[in-house]
C-alpha cells in the first residue's frame, strides 16, 4: 500500500508525464529523471522525478553529460527524498534552489458533508467552448507560466478521462479555475487560479470544497495538491495536511 508521500509524488509525476505526452514530448521515462520541454501553460524545459536514484554513479554521470551537452533545463523539481544528498549533487551541476512547495493530502473523506454554495455562485465542469475560453483566460493570466496554454492543449487534456476542468462563476462570470487529475489511487488538484480582482473572497476555497464534496461520493482515495506558502493556510483550513516537500532549482547562468 502506498503512503501519502508516494501518492503525492506519483500523482505529480503522472500528471506531468500525461501532459508531456499530449504535447508530443518524450519525457525520457527510461531515465530516473523525466524531462518536459515547453509545456504551454506549465513550465518550459522542466526536469522532474529527481530523487536519490540520481546519485547512482552511472546515472549521475549520464545526467552530468546531458547537462554539459546543452540540455540545461530552466527548472528542476526535486522531491525531498534524500534531498540532503541530492542537493549537493545538483549544486555541483550548477543548479541552485530558489523555492519550495508542500505536497498536501486529505484522506478519509467518505463521510464528508456537502456544503451549499452562496447565492449567485455556481461551479460547473467546463464543457462549452465559452467556459473553456474563460477557464484558459484565468489560468493564463494568473499562473504566470512563461508560455500560455492554448485551446488545443486544453482540448487534448480534457479528451483524457483522467482530467476534469472546473470553473467557479459569480453571477455568470468565471472567477476561479481548477484542473483535477485522477489516477487509480489518488486525485490531484492542479491549476487552481482566481482572477486577480476576485482574489481574497474565498472562491478558491469554495472550488476545492466543491471538489472534495463531489469526490467523496466517488472514492475514498486521497486527494493531493501542491501548496505554496501563501496557499497553505487555506488548504489546512479545508482539512489537508502537509506531507512532504518539493524544491525548485534553476541553473546558474551568470557567475558574478
Amino acid at each position, binding site marked *: 500500500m502506498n503512503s501519502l508521500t508516494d501518492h503525492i509524488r506519483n500523482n505529480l509525476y503522472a500528471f506531468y508525464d500525461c501532459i508531456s505526452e499530449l504535447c508530443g514530448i518524450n519525457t525520457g521515462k527510461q531515465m530516473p529523471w523525466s524531462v518536459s520541454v515547453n509545456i504551454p501553460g506549465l513550465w518550459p524545459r522542466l526536469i522532474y522525478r529527481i530523487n536519490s536514484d540520481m546519485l547512482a554513479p552511472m546515472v549521475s554521470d549520464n545526467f552530468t553529460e546531458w547537462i554539459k551537452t546543452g540540455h540545461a533545463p530552466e527548472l528542476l523539481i526535486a522531491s525531498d527524498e534524500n*534531498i540532503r544528498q541530492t542537493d549537493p549533487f545538483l549544486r555541483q551541476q550548477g543548479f*541552485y534552489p530558489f523555492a519550495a512547495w508542500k505536497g498536501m493530502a486529505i484522506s478519509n473523506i467518505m463521510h464528508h458533508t456537502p456544503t451549499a454554495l452562496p447565492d449567485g455562485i455556481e461551479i460547473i465542469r467546463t464543457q462549452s467552448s465559452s467556459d473553456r475560453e474563460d477557464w484558459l483566460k484565468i489560468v493564463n493570466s494568473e499562473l504566470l507560466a512563461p508560455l500560455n496554454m492554448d485551446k488545443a492543449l486544453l482540448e487534448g487534456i480534457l479528451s483524457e478521462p483522467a482530467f476534469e476542468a472546473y470553473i467557479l462563476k459569480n453571477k455568470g462570470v468565471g472567477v476561479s479555475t481548477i484542473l483535477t487529475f485522477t489516477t487509480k489511487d489518488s486525485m490531484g488538484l492542479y491549476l487552481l487560479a482566481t482572477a486577480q480582482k476576485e482574489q481574497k473572497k474565498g472562491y478558491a476555497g469554495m472550488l476545492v470544497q466543491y471538489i472534495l464534496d463531489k469526490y467523496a461520493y466517488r472514492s475514498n482515495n486521497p486527494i493531493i495538491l501542491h501548496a505554496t506558502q501563501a496557499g497553505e493556510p487555506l488548504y489546512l483550513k479545508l482539512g489537508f495536511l502537509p506531507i512532504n516537500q518539493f*524544491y525548485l532549482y534553476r541553473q*546558474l547562468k551568470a557567475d*558574478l
Partner: protein
Amino acid sequence: MNRAEIFDKIEPICRKIFGEGVEFTEKTKATDIEKWDSMNHVTLIAAVEKEFAVTFDLMEIIGITTLGDFVDLIEKNKLNADH
C-alpha cells in the same frame, strides 16, 4: 564584521544584478524589485556565497525573502565558523 559592513558588501552585488536606480535596504524583498526573478535570485545567492566564502544550507536558501535575510545568514555562518 557587523551587520552594516556585511550589507555594504551585499549592496554592490545587488547593483550588479538588479541595476542602478533602486534603493537597497535590509528590508528590500523580491517583490520590491522588478528584476528580482528566480533567475536573478539564484545569481544573487551564488554571488553572496562567493563574496563571503560560505555555502548556505538548502533550508536557509528557501527561507530567504529579504536582503536582511542574507545578512542574518552571513552573521550566523561567521558565528558558527568562529566556534
